[in-house]
């Protein structure tokens, strides 16, 4: 009996002690940020674990009397928290990380984001919009309003193994999708003839969910020549409503979708129906893929950590090939950050946002990773990148920004859902559980119903 009492008392004390040390110290204006990509995003501010604060960040904090709290989560899962915050108007987060492939469109429509146009002048010394590549801002513009500032961003392209191309007598990376398909077949045959079974001609991503949709939409755009989701290719809710444009997933959407699926099946690794960009990156880094496209950035992400000498020495960049329409395959994305409409400290939040996307911070990113992608021309042409990469390649990458059409898929509030359905359909088709036609018919039915319910065709 006595034992029990003492035990309980000790237990209570232990719990009490744990509590007392758990409460955080209070600071000045707290800016809470939710994001994804711990250890990668803002490694120069939050350290490789995403949980520290570097001197660079501390300097900003003390100069502006704010305290920046970063919370990292998985991308899809982070969205769940943001949504709960939004529905309840909790205002837990002042800054929210967004992708330009759904979150920007959806959250701005839902009223969760603060339009930024009015803030741009308030911290021009920290973030000057005129110094950033325009398309990255356009990608975050919905209905003429700017909703997010771009952090890490990229355009489309191809990274391939020059040594393997040479080996099979291919002297140049093809300019068109038709030529590329022939080349992929040549490589496939060559690898087979040499008895190499663990190297695949192509690596892309086919995981269920939104994962493949960014690249797949790029295929659709290159094959149809326009964002072929709805009749006539409208990209805003107003345009769709004006013409009552019906979905065309089993129409002009098909050639690009079909090619994406077929190439994945014929030239990709066996697990491709589950691959995310991480798998795509690892596969390339391990020397198991000859071509990585159209989000070339994922190859640049993998190359530095590769232990395969040939990957490091013989990887080359090429512009994304053009489809039958003459337009290049797209893969255009910005990892942007927006201000919550429920933030209690919007001016400070914007200032922090400006800092997080400022030139010195993006330079820190370039210094740390050395990838040939950045949002500032100034960084693109500085020794940080020009010392590492050829001027020709940097020029090609710069062109992939300036020649991109950021709105190569519709900017509608339902975008997140569409990206999810399209990607899941592609994953099913690649895995072979349904045929391309079945996947597209289902997509067509689903989207017709979805758009009708959302009131587009009243």
């Amino acid at each position, binding site marked *: 009996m006595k034992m*029990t009492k003492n035990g309980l008392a000790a237990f209570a004390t232990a*719990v009490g002690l744990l509590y007392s040390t*758990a409460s955080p110290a209070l600071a000045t204006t707290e800016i809470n940020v939710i994001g994804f990509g*711990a*250890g*990668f995003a803002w490694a120069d501010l939050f350290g490789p674990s*995403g*949980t520290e604060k570097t001197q660079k960040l501390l300097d900003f904090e003390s100069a502006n009397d704010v305290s920046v709290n970063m919370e990292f989560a998985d991308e899809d*899962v982070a969205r769940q*928290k943001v949504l709960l915050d939004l529905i309840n108007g909790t205002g837990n987060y002042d800054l929210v990380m967004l992708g330009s492939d759904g979150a920007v469109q959806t959250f701005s429509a839902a009223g969760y984001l603060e339009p930024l146009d009015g803030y741009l002048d308030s911290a021009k010394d920290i973030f000057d919009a005129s110094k950033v590549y325009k398309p990255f801002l356009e990608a975050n513009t919905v209905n003429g309003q700017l909703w997010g500032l771009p952090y890490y961003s990229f355009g489309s392209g191809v990274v391939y193994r020059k040594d393997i191309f040479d080996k099979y007598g291919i002297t140049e990376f093809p300019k068109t999708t038709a030529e590329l398909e022939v080349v992929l077949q040549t490589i496939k045959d060559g690898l087979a003839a040499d008895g190499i079974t663990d190297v695949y001609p192509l690596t892309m991503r086919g995981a269920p969910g939104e994962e493949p949709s960014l690249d797949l939409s790029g295929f659709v755009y290159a094959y149809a020549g326009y964002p072929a989701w709805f009749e006539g290719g409208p990209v805003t809710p107003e345009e769709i409503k004006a013409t009552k444009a019906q979905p065309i997933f089993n129409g002009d959407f098909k050639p690009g979708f079909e090619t994406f699926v077929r190439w994945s099946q014929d030239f990709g690794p066996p697990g491709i129906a589950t691959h995310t960009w991480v798998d795509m990156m690892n596969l390339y880094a391990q020397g198991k893929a000859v071509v990585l496209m159209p989000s070339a950035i994922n190859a640049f992400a993998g190359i530095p950590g590769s232990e395969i000498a040939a990957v490091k020495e013989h990887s080359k960049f090429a512009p994304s090939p053009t489809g039958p329409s003459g337009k290049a395959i797209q893969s255009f994305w910005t990892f942007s950050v927006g201000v919550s409409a429920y933030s209690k400290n919007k001016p400070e939040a914007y200032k922090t946002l400006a800092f997080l996307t400022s030139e010195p911070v993006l330079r820190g990113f370039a210094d740390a990773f050395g990838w040939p992608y950045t949002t500032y021309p100034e960084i693109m042409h500085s020794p940080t990148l020009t010392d590492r990469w050829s001027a020709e390649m940097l020029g090609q990458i710069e062109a992939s920004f300036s020649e991109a059409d950021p709105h190569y898929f519709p900017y509608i509030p339902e975008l997140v859902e569409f990206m999810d359905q399209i990607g899941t359909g592609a994953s099913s088709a690649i895995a072979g559980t349904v045929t391309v036609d079945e996947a597209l018919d289902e997509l067509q039915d689903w989207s017709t119903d979805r758009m009708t319910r959302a009131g587009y065709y009243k």
Partner: protein
Amino acid sequence: MARKLGRTLSDDLGRWTLITLALIFVLLPIVWLAIASVKTRNAALAIPPEFIFTPDFSAYARIMSGGFLGAFQNSLIIALSNVVLTLVLGVPAAFALTRMHGKVQENLSFWLLSIRMAPLFAVILPLYVLFKSIGLLDTPIAVSLAHLTLTLPLAIWMLVTYFRSIPVDLDHAARLDGANAMQILWLVIIPIARPMLASVAIIVFIFSWNEFLLAFILTSRNAQTVPVAVASLAGTMSFDWPLIAAVSVASMLPALIFVGFAQRHIVSGLGSGAVK
């Protein structure tokens, strides 16, 4: 005699084959995790795997330097408070249930056992609304309370069947001595039930420690738990397997220690609960 020995031998052979296979199945992933946690990033991905290598403990160093210690502290607070809450609420309730009869008892028992019918994804939003309205979001106590939905029915089920095995005569005797219900519980029942309470506590601790979805929804930076921290690592650029493995290994340690010490208690505790 010889026939009996033969039977025992062949029985034993089957039994040990089964046990060996079971152990391989059970331990392989854990051993693999432990090994991966002391490899370098590239070595952890190498196929064929290297079986002989110089261990690299930098992943553990990264845990210590990163924010994971806070997550461990939070998880510990949440699981321990949940154990306390579960026992404080569950012990009297279970005791009262065993001293009830008829329809009320039956319906109450069913309701308590089946309390988790609502799928978690569907109650996330209401729970969030609830804890927001009482200002408990992102606090350990909110997660502890939410975990009651998992742990309390389990604890009550274990306790009810155990208490039923304690003869009612003991109550009567104590009552004759002038004890009230509270005193009977505290002075008669609980001392007898100590090993059982220990096993309930451990099981409850484990369930609370492991839970992800509720802990994820109800916390952000102040009260993040270990499973949530592990999940957030997955979003990283490099998919740092040694780090994930190291955190995983560390995440099992507290519960593993409990289980190691109290394995016999858990079994005997559950035993009295399982068969009526």
